[in-house]
């Protein structure tokens, strides 16, 4: 993997539209075959586990984007044909935000989003 492959325009994008454009996704269709498994409330905004799952055939790429981070794109994963399109990563979130999973399958883009709450903490029963 050469350093030059890193998709600088996509990672530098500061709006969701720019990030999606840089990834070649335009306006992805929402799909029930894309799933995000994550806690509704983050235990720690610095470490938020997110599992991204695609049930779409021929999934080539899965990306994770955080709407309210300074740079939206957190990660992009490219699958080999034998790789099952289910990846788990841990991301940083500065505040409560929608997290989007973007999937490229058969050359088309699909997405799903979930709100993850980042809270100040304290109190309890």
């Amino acid at each position: 993997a050469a350093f030059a492959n890193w998709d600088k325009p996509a990672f530098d994008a500061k709006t969701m539209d720019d990030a999606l454009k840089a990834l070649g996704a335009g306006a992805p269709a929402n799909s029930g075959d894309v799933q995000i498994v994550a806690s509704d409330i983050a235990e720690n905004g610095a470490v938020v586990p997110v599992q991204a799952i695609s049930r779409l055939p021929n999934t080539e790429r899965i990306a994770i984007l955080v709407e309210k981070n300074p740079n939206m794109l957190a990660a992009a994963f490219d699958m080999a044909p034998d790789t099952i399109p289910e990846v788990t990563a841990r991301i940083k979130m500065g505040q409560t935000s929608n997290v989007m999973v973007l999937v490229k399958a058969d050359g088309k883009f699909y997405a799903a989003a979930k709100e993850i709450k980042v809270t100040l903490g304290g109190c309890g029963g």
Partner: protein
Amino acid sequence: LLPGAGLARAEAAAEAVYDAPAFGNVSLLHITDCHAQLKPIHFREPSVNLGIGGMAGRVPHLVGSRLLEHFNLKAGSREAYAYSCLDFENLAGLYGKVGGFAHLATLVKRVRANRPGALLLDGGDTWQGSGTALWTQGQDMVEAAKLLGVDIMTLHWECTYGQDRVKEIAEKDFAGKIEIVAQNIKTADFGDDVFKPYTLRDVNGVKVAVIGQAFPYTPIANPRYMVADWTFGIREEEMQATVDAARAAGAAVVVVLSHNGMDVDLKMASRVRGIDAILGGHTHDGMPAPSIVANPGGKTLVTNAGSNGKFLGVLDLQVTGGRVADFRYRLMPVFATLLPADPEMDALITRVRAPYEARLGETLAVTEGTLYRRGNFNGSFDQLILDALMAEKDAEIAFSPGFRWGTTLLPGQPITMENLLDQTAITYPYVTLNRMTGEQIKTVLEDVCDNLFNPDPYYQQGGDMVRVGGLSYACDPAAPAGRRIQDMTLNGQPLEASKSYKVAGWAPVAEEAKAAGGEPVWDLVARHLRARKTVAPPQLNLPTLKGVDGNPGLAA
């Protein structure tokens, strides 16, 4: 030590309350959220427990007369005293103290006598909530739970002694006696199980699976540094997988011993298939009857067994042909005046308290009004803490956490150091004094308010609203996040977003606050009370509520 006639009356009353006939072939006894109350206490149930959105007017969000009507309880009865806030002072005089492990032990033995093989399940919040529990790092409660005969438990406040202490108790004190289960506590590195997700027990030839569900938001509601290597969460998908695994292992009965809080349990019961019953805690809702929740796999019972040692839940199941055919459920109030103290447990309690009696027994002041905590927005004991914080720290505004534990004092009673510790005994008791802008104050209030009133229970944390001193505000619980807190004023002037204010508080969850030290809050409040000697009923600072007229979670 009652005179003859009185004793006979007490026995007759006890018969009526406790002699539920045994039923079926599998019995599960359930205690939860005793918060280390070894001795009998008074505990006033809330007069404000609002349900919002889909939860409005539904169990457990019923208080006072609306709760009595819903469960068909007679005003003025023993049951009304146990389950509701109505006429609390009078009924407390009539029916006396509740709970206490020696009295609970007598009840457990009585119930177990005609329920052979019954399992005793402890939903957690057992090791925290008293001076002795704090000073012994939970050891007094560990001994009491073993003697009581607890079989299986799950966790919440236990974790605030730190993960190493919890592991030590699990592996040494509890070895071969009490099993800790938690499907939702995993290691922070590779996500391995920290405890067994469930345990499979043989009860009279029936395989019974008990799945543990610890408080999902422990690292958020309490300091994360205390469980640095563990991660929690609701983990609904893994709950389903655990239920399926238990069934595959031959379980005829699957119950979840849960510390989710009741709204979360009700949602989980509507989505996860194959659970016969969720025995719940955390939100301290003493619910006389279970909620029956439909889901794609059938029906699930959801119970909640109150707090402070007030109740013993008894679930009797008739299991035939490998499935639950029928059930009976009773939530038995532990009336200390009806149940003699178990001598063995009484001796243990006397022994563990002995080194601390003098310190616990110091009278700090006398209260002229009822001092209680529980309720969505404020309690009179919390107001007392807020008043002490503002006075002692010369602060304009004070915050006190919306804890749901904490016992009740009646008018005319002394406030002892023990009573004060019942409200404050935590492992991060530091008093804080900060300058906060009006905007930051609003952010804090909105954040906590969303934890209480988010329309989706999975986004709730099960505490009450942070108690606020000095600052007036309005609250619209049904408004969207960020718009619930309104009309904030200080001494009649609107709070200014960019101006900074002096704010006192306690129980900070940040590790930096631990490093900064800060006086334990009980020292500050004790100093304040000793100087006051007599405490008039505190003037409760309550928000002006909007949009909740007629809500049965608000006592008229």
